[in-house]
């Protein structure tokens, strides 16, 4: 199976995301002008500062040709993971509900946090079990998850809140400690923390690798 990792001008975690994918499967970068995702089985929209993050995080990147292809890919049920800036892009593109607002403290924050996984149907979590705790870093300026209350209620009741910050560790003021949500069918996951920076115990933790291996083993079995 092959991962495609989007690359926008200004992306900066795409190499790390690519390397994380390569630990468990084939992977290649997808340039923002590409429109053909043939041969790609799962898409990662990586972190960074696409288009400088100017105006609003993710606002410009969502209009790239590659993102149109990703929207179609997601509509067809293809697994899509948006990390940090990628999560922002997916929200801006309407593939995920809500928005990511500037951190409550108005500062960039880079910190290892603990995440609790709550059961979802996402292919990105097939190797996780409800209640798992993962140590994964956050690093962002605009990570405060926001959605109207009724949307939050709906997300919670339909099991679409995939990850929450552990108690007392919400780093940015996210509503209901939400760190990651899925779309209705679960194939699209947006996550503020960076699993691609947690794939090797040498650099702090390997807990994030499970997201990539979840998809890889699922698709390899299919």
């Amino acid at each position, binding site marked *: 199976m092959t991962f495609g990792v989007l690359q926008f*001008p*200004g*992306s*900066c*975690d795409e*190499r*790390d995301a690519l*390397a994380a994918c390569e630990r468990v499967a084939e992977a290649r970068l997808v340039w923002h002008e590409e429109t053909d995702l043939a041969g790609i089985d799962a898409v990662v929209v990586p972190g*960074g*500062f696409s*288009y*400088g*993050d*100017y105006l609003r995080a993710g606002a410009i990147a969502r209009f790239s040709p590659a993102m149109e292809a990703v929207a179609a890919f997601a509509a067809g049920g293809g697994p899509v993971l948006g990390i940090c800036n990628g999560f922002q892009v997916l929200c801006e593109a309407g593939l995920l509900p809500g928005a990511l607002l500037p951190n409550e403290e108005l*500062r*960039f*924050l*880079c*910190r290892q946090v603990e995440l609790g996984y709550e059961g979802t149907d996402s292919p990105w979590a097939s190797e996780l079990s409800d209640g798992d705790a993962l140590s994964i*870093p956050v*690093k962002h*300026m605009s990570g405060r998850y926001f959605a109207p209350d009724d949307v939050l209620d709906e997300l919670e009741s339909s099991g679409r809140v995939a990850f929450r910050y552990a108690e007392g560790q919400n780093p940015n003021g996210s509503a209901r400690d939400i760190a990651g949500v899925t779309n209705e069918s679960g194939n699209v996951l947006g996550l503020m923390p*960076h699993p*691609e*920076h947690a*794939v*090797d115990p*040498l*650099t*702090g933790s390997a807990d994030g690798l499970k997201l990539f291996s979840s998809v890889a083993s699922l698709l390899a079995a299919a």
Partner: protein
Amino acid sequence: MGPPAGQVATHRELGLTDSEYERIVELLEREPNGVELAMFSLLWSEHCAYKHSRKLLGRLPTDGERVVMGPGENAGAVDVGNGYAVAFKVESHNHPSAVEPFQGAATGVGGILRDVFAIGARPIAILDSLRFGELDSERSRYLLDGAVAGIGHYGNSIGVPNVGGEIYFEAPYEQNCLINAMCVGLARTSEMVRAAAAGPGNLIVLMGASTGRDGIGGASVLASAELEAGDDAKRPTVQIGDPFEESKLLECCLELLNRGLLVSLQDLGAAGLTSSAGEMASAGGVGIDLDVRKVPLREADMEAFEIMVSESQERMLAVVEPPRLDEVVATCQRWQTGSAAIGEVTGGGHLRIFDAGEPVGDVPVSALVDECPLYDLEPAEPEGWMYSNEETLGTQVALSVGRSADAGDPSAILPALLASPSVASKRWAFEQYDSLVGSRTVRRPEQADAAVLMLPESERAIGISIDGNGRRVACDPYAGAVEAVLECAANLACVGAEPLGLTNCLNFGNPEKPNVAWQLDRAVSGLADACRKLGVPVVGGNVSLYNETGQGPIYPTPVVGMVGELPDPSRVPGMAPRDGDELLLVGPFAPSLAGSELAKLRGDLGPGLPALEISEVAAAIAFVRELARSGAASAIHDVSDGGLACALAEMAIAGGVGLGIELDPLVELRGASGETCLFGEGPGGFLVALPEASALKLVEEAAEGGVGALRIGSCDGERIVISAAEAEASVALEDAERAWRSLPSRVDPGR
């Protein structure tokens, strides 16, 4: 030819002396026109010409087996095996940051990144070394807040991890903060380039951002003159950083070099096109013709001289063979970055400037780049202490320790020292930096004394450290500079890294003042001697002079950045001991209160530091390095600011475990008082935590290596208890931690 007289300022306003002007006339054999004068004024500024420091820099050792590029290039580089080199350099952006901290610091990072990718290395780490006034000053808080945010903004956006640094707060930096940034890059040695133009007929291509009026006169007006009140007039020249533009430019340049499409490459920094074209021509022994109207402009009505000296950020200059131009332009377009052929290499040895084909300037490259007069310093040792002890007493901390009834109680002094902003945890700052991008960071800030990055490319890892305690250099410029080098090497030893090379930034006051000249002279000798004795070559650096205001010079601050290598990143000890570990003090550490943090808080600073034997410290460094590599120690930490007690407390906090320590053996050995043993400072001290069963063996091994090692206690409980003769500090672990983590409340007292 040239603009009408009076369009640019006279030579004095541009910072040239009368005799320098006469020399220019002599070299040109005529009066310079406005464009030429503007160019000379910048390249003959202190910032570009090093006219007061170049002679001194000759003392620094620059040779070493592993040196791939030494001083004279945009960055120095050392070999790390498998065909790879690590490039690095530290640079200052002090004066722009004192005017506008956010943009000044951000563009400082942007500039040092360009120096590193200019030689074909991909930046893999940033470090920053910052100095501000005391935190009870609103101005200091404003500068700190802006500078840290600016450094974070640029580095985070561009995706280079910031893995380390230091921040000191001292009154002499109040009006003149120091913002030094260091960048480390990784290159395939075969793909590295030098900044020498070559091949008459080749094209000069300007890449990246368009050129505006940013920083016009910046190099001469901002970087080389003392800041005075009423600096507002200099403000319109503030440079704005655009990390997004630089990120595209970086990727584009590395791709162009990787595909072999460039003859050479140079960044545009201080003095913009003038210095990069001039220096490229000089290095290649050729001439260059430029047409300023071919430069993409942000503002259409710019004058020729403005275009030549603009310091707009995010630009690079390349030499390209004509048949390659189309490919270069296409690559730039793909990366959405600008490119324009603005001139060509000539055989004539002149830098000739045209404005839409009309000649507007013509100067011999050698006159511009190499003929600036170099000055001898006139050093004179000051009588007594040049700085005010009263001013250093500004902080609340000082008030509570220096002047309270508890002044002599070690249990009160320890938390006060831990809360002193220069000693306290800098988490508030480094959490604003992405320290992880790139997936190389094996030791992040606060996990060890040096940052550790793995280099799978060359199957090893590097340790990186940046250091320089200006207060101690003020006490004794020679010994203080030696200590800065030793401190860096000690930090590297704690993670098992052996120094490969060193970069430095000499931040000093006005060198035309004899006392400052003396500081500079002594400090450079200290650096040189320490480097020689440790066998570490200096591969590059930067000099920032005239750091002073009406209130006098800053502390003399040589900032040292060091890169070392270690074989196995999986065996790097951290700073956190385990419950039950025994603690040893290794090395020739001889504590003294002279120049210490405690002396500062008490208002007791004065000239002089104890003499020290570099080779003894070097032996301890080598011993600790091997110990770290062996994997036998659970934690290693060197003793620095705040002395042994603070170093011990930092380990206790990292490990979440209390300590019971008894320093009587040290009191005896050094004949020092208990208080001095607790809080005295000096080089050559390492704290090692390891399982009790291994302690005796370590003491024996140390003795065999001629290195002293004392067993001083063990880790357990929830209190930090350290006794030394009559003195005892006893503090609950959580109180120590609260004090040490108090920086946020000082930065933001309203919260």
